[in-house]
């Protein structure tokens, strides 16, 4: 990176190119920015994009094998559709209620009542079947998907529509056992508890810049080429079946493992390949828990990041930071 002269603005104009976008998966390129920017985005996606998750459980009756805290913990980790979360209030900031779930601004009430009646079969209490929300906007993600499917909106990216969609298992009940509870879901962020994190996987890599020294490569026999190509644990290189030339088939599969470089050295051909990380371009992979769509996650992250930056800017002005105060 060239150092700009004094007085020159550092401002850059990052570009985003979306490679792939599914409901819960996204892959995009982020160019013309530095690692701190990319990492900030990643960190916000993991820890600071708000979602809704069950936070308070009132157990009326529990004769299952799992104890109350156990079930409460499991309920908390069920992802709930949180598209509305950005507009909700944190229950600690909510002045309309005292966070007991009676307030529509900050909480959503859930009910669960299941009883295994006299059949020999074990009853599986799942998030799809048994967890009932009072607010249609906030419900377990697999319920939402079922609903979408019922409407005929079949997720085009769902690889296996006939697959196992039984939902998340909460507890198994034997004959005569019962579970009845009331739960309140609240807004929160992943920093406080991982249950509020909408991100399953958020990661990026530096885009590799792979340069094959074609001249040197041509000195290799086909066997040598094959063995060199195979020395990479991931499938980065390939041999063109027609020209028998080594081509870079998938540069992003490269994991910076240096295996090919070591192999080239071992073959007595140092400099056969040169791989550098492009320090200003990143390939992001985002997978969500389903609480938000990948698109929402990215956009919300950018919003949160912007709010935080605003807050920094406004700090001198002693302005009311609103809910951002929590993030600072």
């Amino acid at each position, binding site marked *: 990176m060239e150092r700009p002269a004094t007085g020159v603005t550092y401002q850059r104009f990052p570009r985003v190119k979306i490679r792939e976008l599914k409901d819960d998966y996204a892959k995009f390129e982020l160019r013309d920015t530095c690692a701190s920017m990319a*990492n900030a985005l990643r960190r916000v996606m993991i*820890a600071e994009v708000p979602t809704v998750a069950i936070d308070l459980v009132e157990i009326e009756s529990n004769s299952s094998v799992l*104890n109350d805290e156990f079930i409460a*913990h499991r309920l908390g980790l069920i992802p709930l559709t949180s598209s509305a979360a950005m507009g909700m209030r944190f229950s600690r900031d909510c002045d309309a209620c005292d966070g007991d779930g009676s307030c529509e601004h900050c909480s959503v009430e859930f009910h669960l009542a299941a009883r295994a009646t006299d059949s020999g079969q074990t009853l599986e209490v799942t998030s799809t079947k048994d967890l009932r929300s009072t607010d249609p906007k906030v419900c377990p993600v697999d319920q939402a998907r079922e609903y979408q499917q019922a409407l005929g909106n079949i997720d085009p990216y769902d690889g296996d529509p006939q697959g196992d969609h039984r939902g998340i298992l909460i507890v198994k009940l034997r004959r005569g056992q019962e579970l009845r509870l009331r739960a309140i879901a609240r807004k929160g962020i992943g920093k406080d508890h991982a249950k509020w994190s909408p991100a399953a996987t958020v990661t990026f890599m530096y885009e590799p810049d792979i340069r094959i020294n074609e001249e040197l490569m041509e000195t290799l026999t086909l066997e040598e080429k094959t063995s060199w190509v195979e020395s990479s*644990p991931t499938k980065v290189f390939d041999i063109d079946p027609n020209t028998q030339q080594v081509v870079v088939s998938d540069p992003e599969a490269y994991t910076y493992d240096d295996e090919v470089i070591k192999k080239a050295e071992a073959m007595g051909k140092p400099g056969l390949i040169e791989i550098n990380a492009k320090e200003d371009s990143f390939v992001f992979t985002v997978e969500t828990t389903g609480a938000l769509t990948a698109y929402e996650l990215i956009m919300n992250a950018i919003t949160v990041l912007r709010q935080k930056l605003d807050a920094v800017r406004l700090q001198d002005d002693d302005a009311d930071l609103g809910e951002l105060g929590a993030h600072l």
Partner: protein
Amino acid sequence: MPPAASAPDAAAADGDPEAAPPVPTYRSLAAPVCNPVDKFALLPAFLKVRGLVKEHIDSFNYFITKGIKNIIQANNRIEARSDPSIYLRYKDIHIGVPSLQVDFRVENITPHFCRLTDRTYSAPVYVDIEYTVGKAHTLYRKSNFIIATMPIMLRSYACVLNGKDEAELARYGECPLDPGGYFVVKGTEKVVLIQEQLSKNRIIIDTDNKGRVIASVTSSTHEVKSKTVIVMDKEKIYLQLNRFTKPIPIIVVMKAMGIETDQEVVQMVGRDPRYGDLLYLSLQECATERIYTQQQALRYMDDKALPGAGNIKDGQAKVLLRDVFVAHVPVKNGNFRPKCIYTAVMLRRMLDAILNSDTFDDKDYVGNKRLELSGQLVSLLFEDLFKTMNEFVMLRMNKNSDMARSSPLDFSQLIQQDTTITSGLERAISTGNWDIKRFKMHRKGASQVLSRLSYMASLGYMTRITPQFEKTRKTSGPRALQPSQWGMLCPCDTPEGEACGLTKNLALMTHVTTDQEEGPLMNLCYSLGVEDLSLLSGEEIHAPGSFLVMFNGLILGKHRQPQRFANSMRTFRQSGKIGEFVSIFVNEKQHCIHIASDGGRVCRPLIIADKGRSRVKEHHMKELRDGIRSFDDFLRDGLIEYLDVNEENNALIALYEHVDQDDVERSSITHIEIEPMTILGVVAGLIPYPHHNQSPRNTYQCAMGKQAMGNIAYNQLFRADSLLYLLVYAQRPLLTTKTIELVGYDKLGAGQNATVAVMSYSGYDIEDAIVMNKSSLDRGFGRCIAMKKYTVITEKSDRIAKPQRDKDGDLIKQNMRALDEDGFIAPGQIIRNHDIYVNKQTPKVATTAPGTVLTSRDYRDSPAVYKGVDGETTVVDRVMLCSDTNDKLTIKCIIRHTRRPEVGDKFSSRHGQKGVCGTIVQQEDFPFSERGICPDLIMNPHGFPSRMTIGKMIELLGGKAGVSCGRFHYGSIFGEPSGNADKVEDISHTLVKHGFSYNGKDFLYSGILGHPLQAYVFMGPIYYQKLKHMVLDKMHARASGPRVLLTRQPTEGRSHDGGLRLGEMERDCLIAYGASMLIFERLLLSSDPYQVQVCTKCGLLGYYNHKLKVSFCSMCKNGENMAKMRMPYACKLLFQELQAMNVVPRLKLTEG
């Protein structure tokens, strides 16, 4: 097996790459095909029939089926002194079904019922008796007459669980994985530990602490126990017996037993002139004492004997020689010859040892050890108690018969009233004090509470062997690893510290024998050509080429063709004609054949090989897999046999049939190991790749595996242990071993597979601390449940009151909020510190006149108050009510606390690498890979170089390969050749196939800055255990608090909210630093300051009269010279105590 039988197999041998050299020789062609993996199936088959703790159950079964009958038989008649025709005879004895007598009704009980209600799981002991009553001597017979109730070992024949399948066990509330082998006494589970002893009735040649050569025999028969020592002192040989005041020259002893000529003595010992040389001085000494005949010898010995009964010395020597001297050799009809020969053999072995120091016996050699199991211990106890009861009954009968009585005398009534046996058995097992005067046995800690901290801990208890000798000695010999332990005792599992190497554990396949009947075996020996010694002269005993035959330490005779004799005995054993645990050991050095059928020997099964070729063939294994053949069939068909430690010396055991050893001739191999991994015990068996670790690490893990939290048993939630730690999401290890699957650790795991990155992070990871990912903890990693039991026992007069409310219905006391309307705490309620959990009330007056009705005013509150940690949310799990054995109401409240890991909690991998949680870091700050993998915890790489736990690295690699390919990988010890452990090479291939680097390292990005980390990081899953040591239970601080009454100093210890001691060394530091005011503050002001009045004249302490507001010296009888000073109360106390002892401490004050 004839060689032709394997001919079809021979061709296939070429397919085996390891066994086949390039040019097929006869040897390689003849090599039978035995796929090494197949042999493994024998191990589960073995454990299926034998169980994990069969030795305990076997020995108890032996006791209740055979041992107890023998005891009754030996003492079957008691009679009245006044009239011997009034008698009682025991005809038979048997054990009933575990049951309980409630209100004259018999109820069958289950072990779990006993655990929950604090009862003893015991069964009635029935006898069939025959007795006469009264003057008329009417004969009565009674069968199923109860003489006692006896605690029953779980899963023994007498137990209701015996032979039950999983569903039935579940109905009994029992965990199918629980091995049994312990007792339930007063609600607690008690294990009678295996005791290790030196074997009885065997000659041991050793040196004593003065360096003299000794031959010693500890004789033990049912009647007597004695120790005979023959010692060589100043080249002369003496007999030492504690009943003689002085050592007796051994030749005198021989003469006293009837060997009068010196020639015969020498002949008996052996004709080798070197023996004669060594015996010369002893013979001469005898001659100088002018002892030539038996009479003279006996008279000489009479003088040296301690007086016997009636203070008579005459004839005492003969009695001692008959009954005490090598007491286990019987003297029939006054025939001392067997004893003479035995003594001669002892002498001969002793002289051998002097001539050749190789022939000394090793006391630590496992073959010289016997293990005493619960059956034997209970048997001893029962025998003693049975005899005591009979004596007691006879005593009472005699007492009664002296008086005129209206009802006729009846033994059976007296026995019925007697509870000696019942209470004696229960007391011994519950306290562990085995005090049996009759057998001079005083043992403490013979039984211990079965630890239910983890499944491994309880299994470990069942296989533990405790030593008999004291642990304090700093000897290294008994602590060292013995080569003879191979395959019998686990080389890894031993505690650290004082019991290191003394407390051992059984290996996986070890069996401990029980006694077997001797008579038939002896007869068999004679019919196989053993020549009886009584027919042989002294000369002939040691004829060259013939071997002495020793049977359980007795000299049976000699045999001219020892090898042939041994072979035929072994054939009998292999064909099942004699017991499978009889050992036939040919000792070439001693020219002896030892045949042993006694109990307590350790042995293990091995595959028999004929000239290196296994008798177990592929078709046998197929039958086993198809379920047609069981392990016992293998034994019965002579494919497998049990060898004890001694007999192993006659065997050459190969690890694998197909692997050629360079230095061993294949045809000389006699046995093949079933599985090399059985060298380890149960607890060490859960370490993956232990053979790649530095050995102490495995030992550390063995200790730590027992502290790991996890699932304890399938019935864990129905148990009422006083403390129970459970892991919320326990997993089975990704990298398993075969042992793990065999013992069921995969079903009751005690840990979680954590993704570990081996790197440095944040500096909070020094000294083995680990950095944990907060999100992992949020998601349930390391979350545990601690359940604690609080018991309240109410007296009969107590009552449980409702929570008191005022007229608005509000609680009067806030600490009653968790109570239910019945006065007990409500299950599911959150209980906080100082809350009441049982609202008990006690009458104000202890005794009331009968018929008075107590009102509320007559009661005072005596509630049970919960003492917990402030700020923690604990929940009531269960409340259980039961009546105890005294019909008092017992309330057991089980209070549950779910904890997530916090800084300071202890974790450990399975390689003896423990560490505390150093810090907890947000997930976004954690490093991540471009696949999005983020570790659960970070471990500092400095943990590796000095610990050398390569096994842990391979576990990481194997685990990583396991998660990527979806197959559990194995890491059994020495498992690589047999396929029970994955090789690193194969693992690397798998890793590369799934896009990882072959070496398990990943390219990570910093989570804080987003830049790539400088080095590749070794990352993958490792099975981590959460250990029971948690800060929550340990943290402690206090400002001011309780003080001890006597010294007024702060109390000691966390449980008493004690102060933190500024000890001597800390004090020394402060002195050296010169911080006098700090010392003053710590030792006086913050401890026990006290103001005293000192008389400056007499220097003694006076007192302050608060009424008159003057101080006064009671010594000088005035208050003129009084001075005030401050001193520690403890110091004032010391002065007063000294005065009480007539020591006058006078204080001299410089300023008044």
